[in-house]
């Protein structure tokens, strides 16, 4: 099941050139880019691991691409995303976030039922990938 989180996630995977162009756009707006990765892409897992600190004051997309490629090399089968953060006063929020690498196999999610007090049924989203221990998921 294809993970659809973040911008462009319903499009085919972006090529490196397209990724660089998106980063160049973010930089041209004065946003700081950062790279994050995870092997637990649960929709509620908003805090992916950071690949280095956010990169401020970069003039050119090649600098961010350097880190994207370094992250891909270190975690060839993890999800990797690029975030663009607007630190200007009044915004201070993520403006753009898109996935730049996904594992070859995406097991997807299941809906699990949980019996609660008073025969009440609760539901939770379960990521099949997390059945395996960390490091063996993808």
């Amino acid at each position, binding site marked *: 099941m294809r993970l659809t989180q973040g911008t462009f996630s319903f499009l085919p995977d972006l090529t490196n050139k397209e990724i660089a162009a998106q980063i160049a756009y973010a930089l041209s707006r004065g946003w700081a880019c950062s790279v994050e990765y995870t092997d637990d892409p649960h929709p509620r897992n908003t805090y992916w691991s950071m690949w*280095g600190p956010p*990169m401020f*004051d*970069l*003039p*050119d*997309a*090649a*600098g*961010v691409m*350097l*880190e994207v490629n370094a992250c891909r090399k270190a975690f060839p089968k993890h999800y990797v995303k690029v975030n663009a953060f607007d630190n200007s006063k009044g915004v201070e929020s993520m403006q753009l976030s898109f996935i730049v690498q996904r594992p070859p196999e995406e097991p997807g999610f299941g809906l699990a039922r949980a019996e609660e007090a008073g025969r009440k049924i609760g539901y939770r989203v379960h990521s099949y990938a997390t059945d395996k221990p960390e490091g063996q998921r993808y």
Partner: protein
Amino acid sequence: MSFVHKSLGSRLRGNDEFKIMPNDAPDTVDLAALLREANVTEVLDKLDADLIGLAPVKQRLREIAAFLAVSKARAALGLAGTQPSLHMSFTGNPGTGKTTVAQRMAEILHRLGYVRKGHLVAVTRDDLVGQYIGHTAPKTKEVLKRAMGGVLFIDEAYYLYRPENERDYGQESIEILLQVMENQRDDLVVILAGYRDRMETFFQANPGFKSRVAHHIDFPDYADDELFAIAHTMLGQGDYRLDAGGEAALREYIVRRKAQPHFANARSIRNALDRARLRQASRLFARATPVTRDELATITAADLRASRVFQEA
């Protein structure tokens, strides 16, 4: 045909990919027009007008600009070509204009479309090498990331390599630099600068650098007349001028200062003029009578002759 020229020029200015399919490749390319349309001629002429002396440097810059234009033209006509290696080394004594020329070089490369942004990041050993284990690589990478799309200017590059200390972290920085210089030639141009003899030793000790740096440009020392002309330009920019006695004093100052140790060409001259301006200010301030506009703008012999350079003789 004129359309081809036009489109070529606009492509050179932009950052877009430069591709014309071989089957619709034009037969001729007007090189002069290509340079003109990328506004490179303008930069080169400005360099000629702004910078005094440095004839061999200007000559080399023109050659490099022509070479880059020819490479673009070859690509336009579908001739095989590899991305030319643009890393350079600027050698010369202090104050001979290496940083200034590096800035112009960044502009030329940007206009010819070889670097995307055309900014100059000037660094020294301190910016690249860390203080403890594991500190160097992130520091060097940080600088490289900032310089991507532009020109990285490493001043006094030989300090990166310290043969007397084999555990020096400079070596780590050199390795990262070499890797990026090789693999990301279209993202970044590196200019190494420093004294001539020490740079030569540096290149001998680091053959990796020597083979990756294609252009070696040597900056000659300025002649007395050139230094005088530089002083004139500096004063003119600040709306100052010399009277007749002041001109004679400055000429004499240049000759005497050159004979002394730690002479740093144009930088020494700029410092001398800064001090002369201070003395002029205190001279005018000490006077009881009101000063005229002319007096405010004039630096006299007395302002220059009060210098230490004259006293020692």
